[in-house]
């Protein structure tokens, strides 16, 4: 019981922290979750994180909030999910609540803009660090289709601004098709063997 309470408290604190420091949107949460949930606490492995990132990406809503809830769920069940979700929305709620009152002064402040510009470079480094490790994980699967999907999805989204939902659907369809062809081939193969 005490162990569980401790885990809940940790989940609340860490999600509050992660949420308060993720400037620049959803994906920056992925390296943060990796650092604390995977590397520090070893609550789940990198592959499970990639599963969660894929699911939070393919479902509606904010990726950061979805991912926080999934990580909380994986670590401590339904209660963990609720705690993590609340912790994830609290910092933006408070900060925006305050900012909405003085937003013109805030947007015009030079020092704030300077701090944020520095942090942007830090965020860029965080996300590149994550990509290097994640791409290595996919390369290990030794599947040409999956390997080609990464640059394919990138090009579709970044160069041609294709709708994200469409990209996800096409990639799923390709994987299912490959599976289907593989099974068919296997069936043909075993049939020809039986004939002989």
């Amino acid at each position, binding site marked *: 019981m005490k162990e569980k309470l401790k885990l809940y408290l940790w989940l609340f604190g860490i999600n509050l922290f992660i949420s308060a*420091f993720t*400037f*620049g*949107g*959803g994906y920056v949460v*992925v390296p*943060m979750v990796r650092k604390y949930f995977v590397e520090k606490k070893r609550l789940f492995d990198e592959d499970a994180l990639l599963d969660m990132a*894929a*699911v939070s*990406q393919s*479902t*509606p*809503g*904010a*990726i*950061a*909030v979805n991912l926080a*809830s*999934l990580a909380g769920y994986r670590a401590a069940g339904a209660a963990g*999910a609720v705690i993590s979700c609340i912790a994830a*929305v609290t*910092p*933006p*709620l408070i*900060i*925006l*609540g305050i900012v*909405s009152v003085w*937003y013109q002064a805030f*947007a015009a402040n030079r*020092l*704030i*803009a*300077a*701090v944020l510009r*520095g*942090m*942007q*470079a*830090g*965020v*860029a*480094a965080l996300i*590149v*660090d*994550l*990509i290097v490790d994640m791409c290595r994980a*996919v390369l290990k699967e030794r599947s040409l289709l999956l390997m080609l*999907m990464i640059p394919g*999805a*990138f090009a579709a*989204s*970044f160069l041609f601004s294709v*709708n994200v*939902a469409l*990209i*996800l659907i096409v*990639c799923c369809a390709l*994987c*299912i098709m490959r599976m289907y062809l593989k099974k068919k081939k296997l069936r043909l193969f075993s049939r020809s063997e039986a004939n002989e």
Partner: protein
Amino acid sequence: MFKQLGFLFFVFWQIGLFSIGGGYAIIPLIQEQVVDTYHWVSQKVFTDIITISQMTPGPLAVNTSTFVGIRIAGIGGAVAATVGCVISGVVISLALYRFFCRHRESTYVFEVLNGLKAASLGLIVSAAATILMLTFFGISEIGPIRHVDLAAAAVFLGALAALRKFKINPIILMVITGVLGAVLYGL
């Protein structure tokens, strides 16, 4: 009062439900509801919200719902709009994740998940490209490069080295890069 809160909840619930992919792709969706349909904020204020969203932590959709909610109905409005905005995403994610975990042995489920993983990694790379362009060149879309921010490039390389070599804590990294930003650009 309750009617107003319920309405805020409902509108942002719709926004949350139909915003797949997150990030800047959902701006037009929010704009259509908040500016064009209900006239809760003007176009000028909406643009300001996006700017502030980029400057503050938290997802754009959550930031917008808080900002609009608080202007319409105070703190209660902010909470109602925010909860509405995130609830469907969280519930659907949990359901889908549980489904995937339960049916992992099914080869089709496994393949679908593999496809989603590779695609979402590609999308993360795309988000990274946008952030890198903003950091180095100050532009968010492909176009002519007017200036290169060498100071930001140096901070980026230093941060990347600290992450790869020394596995520095990301939150400490954010604090350090923030201070560097204040020194480099603010003084």
